[in-house]
């Protein structure tokens, strides 16, 4: 496997994200039922459905521009809480990669840092608040660490996926501090956060796809 990621690869990874979310639509709705309003699967799927169109219609020549277009699409026509959050994350990730036609291992870390910080800045969220950030931020940390340890791309991605999974699982025992579930106090404990789950499905499909030869 090459250590460089090209535009086409990013495109097919994004399409895999859409498919993975679609596959988990009802599961995400169900997670959003006990501590939210049961729409998370619908909302992410509707927004990412449009992502698929952007990917196929985009005339972007570089990865940064493509991710910005995706971010704009999600921000402007996504809606729900997840729209501004994922939209900002993609937008900021694109900005961090301005002009890049392919991504080095380092670029990948930069991208994911911007993605995580995008969620943080839009959601004014911290680690442990029981949100999607609890999936995204650990996956960034691990990705960065693996990079600094000189691990090959595949191992970096694999480690990030695992961290995302753990991050998602970690939300189960947390009390929510942000978003709709933050009103439930102790009653929010014992349930995986739907946004943490959709974030995991994004990481799983995106990084998983990038890992393939």
């Amino acid at each position, binding site marked *: 496997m090459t250590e460089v990621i090209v535009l086409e690869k990013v495109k097919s990874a994004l399409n895999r994200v859409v498919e993975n979310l679609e596959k988990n639509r009802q599961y995400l709705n169900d997670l959003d039922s006990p501590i939210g309003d049961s*729409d998370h699967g*619908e909302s992410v799927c509707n927004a990412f459905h449009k992502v698929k169109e952007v990917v196929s219609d985009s005339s972007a020549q570089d990865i940064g521009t493509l991710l910005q277009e995706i971010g704009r699409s999600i921000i402007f*026509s996504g809606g729900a809480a*997840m729209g501004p959050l994922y939209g900002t994350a993609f937008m900021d990730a694109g900005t961090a990669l301005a002009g890049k036609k392919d991504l080095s291992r380092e670029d990948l870390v930069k991208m994911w840092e911007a993605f995580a910080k995008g969620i943080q800045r839009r959601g004014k969220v911290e680690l442990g608040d029981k949100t999607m950030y609890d999936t995204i931020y650990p996956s960034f940390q691990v990705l960065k660490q693996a990079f600094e340890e000189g691990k090959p791309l595949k191992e970096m991605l694999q480690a990030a996926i695992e961290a995302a999974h753990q991050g998602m699982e970690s939300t189960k025992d947390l009390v929510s501090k942000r978003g709709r579930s933050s009103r439930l106090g102790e009653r929010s404990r014992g349930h995986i956060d739907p946004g943490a789950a959709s974030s995991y499905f994004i990481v799983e499909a995106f990084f998983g796809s990038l890992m393939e030869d």
Partner: protein
Amino acid sequence: MKKFINRPENLIEEMLAGFVIANANKVRRLETERVLVRKDAPVQGKVGVVTGGGSGHKPAFIGYIGKGLVDAVAVGDIFAAPPVQRAYEAIKASHGGRGVLLCFGNYSGDVMNFGMAQELAQSEGIEVESVIVNDDVASSPRDRMDNRRGVAGEVILWKVAGAMAEEGADLQKMKEVGERAVFNTRSMGVAHTPCILPTSGKPSFEIGPDEMEIGVGHHGEPGIERTKMMSADQVTELLTLKVIEDLPFASGDEVTVLINGLGSTSLLEMYICVRKVAEILSDHNIKIYRTYIGEFFTSLEMGGFSVTLTKMDDELKKYIDAPCDGVHFVQH
């Protein structure tokens, strides 16, 4: 799922098509976005009043479009805040030269989407302010009021802001009085039956055959406590006392009472309950200024209701009493 729908993915579009046909005398739809506006929007020389949110709360939000009420509504999917573009188009479509007041509920989705739309419109030179409704006393303790959900109290804000705009008030004054109306408004609800989400065919929450959820949100969010069903008087007392002690409403106050059905609770039951509300208020020497009772802000066909009290002052009285001609809210 026993619902009169066609394909779930066409739900909102078909509903809006019906809405525009049925109410063509009062509303129209923007061509480019899923935004409904007063037929004569933008009304020149008047501050625009904009609201919006997820669908499934009818008559909210679009039923409040009309003279003396709301100018434009950004329509979201079922229980999903409308996206930025739509909120932005609603702002533009209602701007008649004197700015726009955004009035919406305190949900992170709405706050982020309307917030970004506001920034966008401001960057184009439109004066925009927001009043965010957080009347649900069950949704956070008093010292975390800024984290509370907005529920039926939104109706009070639309009424007040709409009347002020119609009268020619300026944006800053509307924001000030609107925020006072919100601060003076406290609500709490109860539900015993979930709605069925038309997209998935699943109930919005699970509940036993003899249980109810105290303090429920109007998307079926859990409230404070799961209890056994109680009598009308017991439930009403529980809700009303929590609401009273929150502001707190005090002896000598005058209040507007709003009893809101969440979807399938009959008016008959709500009238039984409002009788008890009145009794409790009278015991507290709180005077009822006006009563609204009916379905103002539903959660599809959820079974339950909420009690809202707004402490009145002379200014609020004037705007609550003003006539309005909304699609589903008409007052002489």
